[in-house]
């Protein structure tokens, strides 16, 4: 039996709620794209930029999250993050019709989300044993998808178009409650990490220099770009595509978008378990990329009952390769334990940049062509790159290692 206090389960539940909230609020505006365009007098490119803007905050912080958490303390970081989320959401509710101000508030929300995400890591690491990491991290990592899912299920029902300000006003309340709960019940890591902060930037430079020489870091970065960027763009725009171009009811369009996350959560253990069993990683990338392309094209072309199935399959195949991005880096012989955290941060940086840029690209395609169909097809086609990356990466599974010996 673990000697660690039972309080950790309560702490984990609190962190889970905070992260579900972060996932919930980040995509609320995607359900109101047309209304946002009218209110701020911007084109679809502007709306895409607004949606993706919070990812810029994530991209700006990700490489420096270690020193930030060390300097301010994990508990305080998480509290500040929750307060930022509350401020970002409430400010959005009261945004005057000024697009740049609206983007600034979205940046505050993004900063809150990234602070919360990075702050819970050291808390989990010290309050739980290594035997519990898999379970706890698995639950915490699923929280973003669960939050997105709940948003797509409930927001269109509670706040039909064009009530996006009312939605943000209402969603500000849980953030305030969570901030109070965290201030009272949140805890710092059991062991404090005293990293040599002043040397961090030199260390970072050396590590980046080493990592950029490894092909797999670039390939996994590119894959993360697809995983976070293209998927965020598709998820962000699919409700508008179905609602505006196919006249689906608001709530039904959002429900279809939720299929991706629902099946993705359910299928998450599938890829990793199967891959561990056969001892191979590459085939999962090779199969998933092309299949996601096929699923996405079919879902947006044969719009109707078939879309539900194919969009769900998209989520399933994302689960098939998703586990492998970090796994390949962890197993790579040239990436030692000292380098791994930076390697993961670099990969996430690619993902956040994709998340910031791709929704804007989709909006620009909508402005240029007058239809989101072309954007969806281009996004879908980009997924084939994952298959190509899968052909290029080094096999790191145990079977390959055993064959080498």
């Amino acid at each position, binding site marked *: 039996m673990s000697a660690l206090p039972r309080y950790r389960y309560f702490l984990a539940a609190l962190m889970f709620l905070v992260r579900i909230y972060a996932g919930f609020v980040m995509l609320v505006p995607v359900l109101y794209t047309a209304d946002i365009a009218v209110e701020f007098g911007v084109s679809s490119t502007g709306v895409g930029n607004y949606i993706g803007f919070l990812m810029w905050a994530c991209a700006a912080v990700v490489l420096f999250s270690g020193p930030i958490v060390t300097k301010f303390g994990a508990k305080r970081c998480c509290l500040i993050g929750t307060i930022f989320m509350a401020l970002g959401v409430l400010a959005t509710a009261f945004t005057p*019709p000024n697009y740049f101000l609206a983007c600034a508030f979205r940046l505050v929300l993004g900063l809150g989300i990234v602070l919360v995400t990075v702050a819970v890591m050291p808390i989990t690491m010290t309050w739980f044993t290594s035997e519990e990491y898999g379970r706890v991290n698995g639950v915490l990592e699923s929280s973003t998808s669960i939050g997105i899912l709940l948003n797509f299920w409930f927001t269109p029902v509670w706040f039909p178009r064009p009530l996006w300000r009312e939605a943000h006003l209402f969603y500000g309340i849980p953030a305030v409650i969570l901030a109070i709960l965290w201030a009272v019940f949140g805890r710092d890591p059991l062991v404090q990490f005293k990293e040599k902060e002043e040397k961090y930037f030199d260390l970072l430079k050396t590590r980046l220099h080493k990592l950029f020489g490894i092909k797999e870091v670039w390939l996994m970065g590119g894959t993360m770009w697809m995983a976070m960027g293209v998927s965020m763009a598709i998820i962000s725009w699919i409700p508008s595509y179905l609602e505006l171009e196919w006249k689906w009811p608001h709530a039904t369009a959002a429900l279809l978008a939720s299929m991706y996350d629902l099946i993705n959560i359910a299928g998450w253990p599938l890829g990793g378990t199967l891959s561990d069993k056969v001892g191979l990683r590459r085939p999962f990338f090779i199969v998933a990329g092309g299949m996601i392309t096929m699923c996405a094209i079919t879902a947006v072309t044969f719009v*109707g009952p078939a879309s539900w199935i194919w969009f769900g399959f998209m989520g399933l195949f994302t689960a098939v390769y998703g586990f492998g991005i970090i796994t390949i880096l962890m197993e790579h012989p040239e990436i030692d334990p000292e380098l791994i955290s930076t390697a993961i941060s670099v990969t996430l940086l690619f993902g956040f940049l994709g998340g910031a840029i791709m929704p804007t690209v989709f909006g620009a395609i909508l402005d240029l062509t007058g239809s989101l169909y072309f954007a969806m097809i281009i996004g879908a086609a980009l997924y084939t790159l994952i298959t190509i990356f899968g052909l290029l990466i080094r096999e790191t599974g145990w079977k390959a290692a055993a064959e080498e010996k």
Partner: protein
Amino acid sequence: MRTWVKCVLLVYVIGFIGVALTAYIFGIPEKPIPKGWSEVASDYRDNYLGSPAGFCVFAKSGMPASVYPKAVALILCASEKFANMTDNVVDLIDVRAIMVTYMIDKGYYPGTYVDGCAALKNWESACNVPYELNCTEVVNFINENHEVIVTSIDSCLGE
């Protein structure tokens, strides 16, 4: 051929069969008729009602500036819903009828539809809207389509 290559190929083959079956069963669906705005209604929306025109019509109404964007979004949303339920084209009379119905039914302006329409006529003339507003025509239009107009407004309000 290695086992994993066979498995990958098998998944792709199953995928292609799935796509073919989808195409066979459902066929390529046709998009619903797009909700269009008539030329006059578009001009009214862009140059007298919406943000590019500084929300002129609403500005003349004395409404607080903070609610202009929301009010415009509501009117545009209701006009499109109304068009979807009728002839799929948003005409100027649709927009005007929705504005008058909304302000009278919700109590934002006192009186009857005739009073509301007269007020709208004043605001429009202050904005130099070049399209004549015939209040008899608008009020008749409201009376004929009242239920659909209310449904359109309510669906955009989320009621």
